[in-house]
């Protein structure tokens, strides 16, 4: 049996021999035998260190509270893919891949915090002063402040403030939490002054703050958040595969299905006649000149 890796790389993450699998110097089997937790292993993987007990507890809380979120783009993605009945990992892959610039943009929030903390250090400003600068710059430019607001939990994300509180309870309040709290303070004040409604911190704003406080990079934090959601999305896909109807369009179900024909609302160009090939050139030239098509270009 060929046991060569698919390709060669110099890596400082792990190696594997016939005798053992070693991650950052620790034999994985020994790590498990010693009684370390999966959360501890996350610190070893991404930070090359064993965490303190409180750091481990914080990660346990953050990952656990983020794992399940019922119907979000990630679960809907998994369920949508499952309608064609591919292998289960495909549904989960789709779910994890839904995390982008808007759905759980953990890395973007982290980079924002890092960028402004760096500026605070460089410009000799306090964390509080820099938080005000951040809020003013984002809101003056009409940009959404990362980590604030959630389209479903409109008056406060049920996970968000409890994460902040857990971080404080565990006495893990460092520069990130101070900065995030200050961002929220100025964000709320500015919206109030503008006569706008209250928008609470979301789970990226609080969860990612906690992840960065316990030493994870923006990308590592994003990975942890996005991938842990994959666990629940697999359950949603599996439920639909085992107990739902494939395709999601059966007319025999008592409830209208996800892609029943009646669910389609079309707002494009009206039905029209396909030109014959002999009419094509003239038709195409006229269509291009008239330019009506441009409103439909995407």
């Amino acid at each position: 049996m060929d046991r060569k890796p698919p390709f060669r790389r110099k890596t400082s993450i792990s190696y594997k021999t016939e005798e053992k699998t070693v991650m950052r110097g620790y034999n994985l089997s020994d790590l498990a035998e010693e009684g370390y937790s999966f959360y501890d292993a996350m610190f070893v993987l991404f930070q090359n260190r064993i965490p303190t007990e409180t750091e481990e507890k914080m990660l346990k809380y953050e990952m656990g509270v983020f794992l399940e979120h019922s119907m979000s783009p990630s679960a809907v993605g998994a369920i949508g893919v499952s309608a064609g009945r591919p292998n289960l990992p495909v549904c989960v892959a789709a779910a994890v891949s839904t995390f982008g610039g808007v759905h759980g943009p953990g890395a973007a929030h982290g980079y924002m915090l890092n960028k402004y903390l760096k500026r605070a250090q460089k410009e000799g400003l306090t964390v509080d002063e820099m938080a005000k600068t951040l809020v003013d710059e984002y809101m003056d430019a009409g940009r959404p402040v990362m980590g604030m607001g959630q389209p479903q939990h409109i008056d406060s994300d049920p996970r968000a403030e409890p994460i902040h509180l857990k971080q404080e309870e565990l006495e893990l309040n460092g520069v990130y939490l101070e900065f995030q709290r200050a961002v929220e303070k100025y964000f709320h004040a500015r919206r109030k002054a503008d006569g706008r409604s209250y928008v609470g911190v979301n789970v990226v704003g609080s969860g990612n703050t906690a992840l960065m406080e316990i030493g994870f990079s923006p990308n590592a934090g994003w990975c942890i958040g996005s991938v842990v959601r994959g666990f629940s999305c697999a359950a949603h896909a599996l439920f639909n595969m085992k107990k739902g109807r494939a395709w999601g369009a059966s007319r025999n179900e008592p409830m209208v299905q996800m892609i029943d024909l009646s669910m389609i609302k079309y707002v494009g160009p009206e039905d029209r006649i396909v030109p014959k090939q002999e009419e094509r050139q003239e038709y195409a030239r006229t269509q291009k000149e008239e330019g009506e098509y441009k409103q439909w270009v995407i």
Partner: protein
Amino acid sequence: MGYLDKKKAESLNKAKRERSIGNLGDPKNPFDYYDREYGTVPQDTKRAPFQWVSEVAYKNVHRIVTRGYDTTELMEEGYGVIDVLFIDYQARIPTIEEEKMLNYIMILALEDGLSAPAAISRIVARSKTFLTQACGASIMAFGHAYGAYSAFGNRLEKYLALSKKQNLSLPEAAKLLVSENLNDEALGVSNLMLKDPAAKRMLARAEKLGTAGEYIAFTREIVAAAQEISTEPVDLDMLGATGAAMMDLGFTPEATWAILAVTRSFAAGAHYIEEVEREETNRLGQELTPKEDYDGPEDRPVPPLAERDKYAASALCTTPDEWTQRFERMKTINGSGFGIIEEVEDPSKKSGIKKVGKL
């Protein structure tokens, strides 16, 4: 929204009938093509409107609930990811021993060096993508050979059911399983862990924690049966140990497959990061494929289009003999697909491709 106004539809159909469109008006069609509706199907008011139906979880503005438990309350009470996996997949809180066992398994499943999931993650990373794309791609590496937890688990269930039905002892059922599947990638027994004790330690841990049950017992019998008839040294491998331990924790083969693929994806994320940190990106057209790796037809001139008929070869076969000859000929053309079989089945209830491999 709904169907197009009747007059407009009739006018369009009339114009099309007069113009005639290819074969669409052919009487062999089981319909009159020029008498069909336009526009979308009106909303169905007789049935209940569509909703996302779930047994797993719901949320409202103020809470997220899985299998009846508020997820924030779960964390406040000290539960974690491992517990929520039992809740999501089995609708129950695990015992402390079960929680410890799954924790143990997930640490072992986290990293596997530069095997397929990490390699795929790194390849995707080189295209300058989001990290989440690479993590997603790594999960797709889990199939019915690599990380074949569903194939392994469903086979255990099949033969355990058979043993009950035919009144076979566990060793007898194991012998039957091995005799019918000795060289299968998802057997759980191979020569991969002859020097690494991690798989055996996992089962020992399950036994020590008291979570070992019939799946581990059966797997031990499968190992013994395989060792008896194999011509080379074989032993329990990580697939067998992990799959059996997960099923004794109550996870279905499919749940096991998903949980362990996602677990590996965390490490795939680290590999994505390291690839971006240490390596270069790829551009379209950048990589060359050396001619010495090519064993297809020799370089040849493209025939002039005007002489197409002189060079073209039809695939049309008019008799079963002709068809058989062509099929055999095509098997020699690598990449054509004639040399392999992939029997795709609906994986809704029991996942697994019936057979993938060489003919």
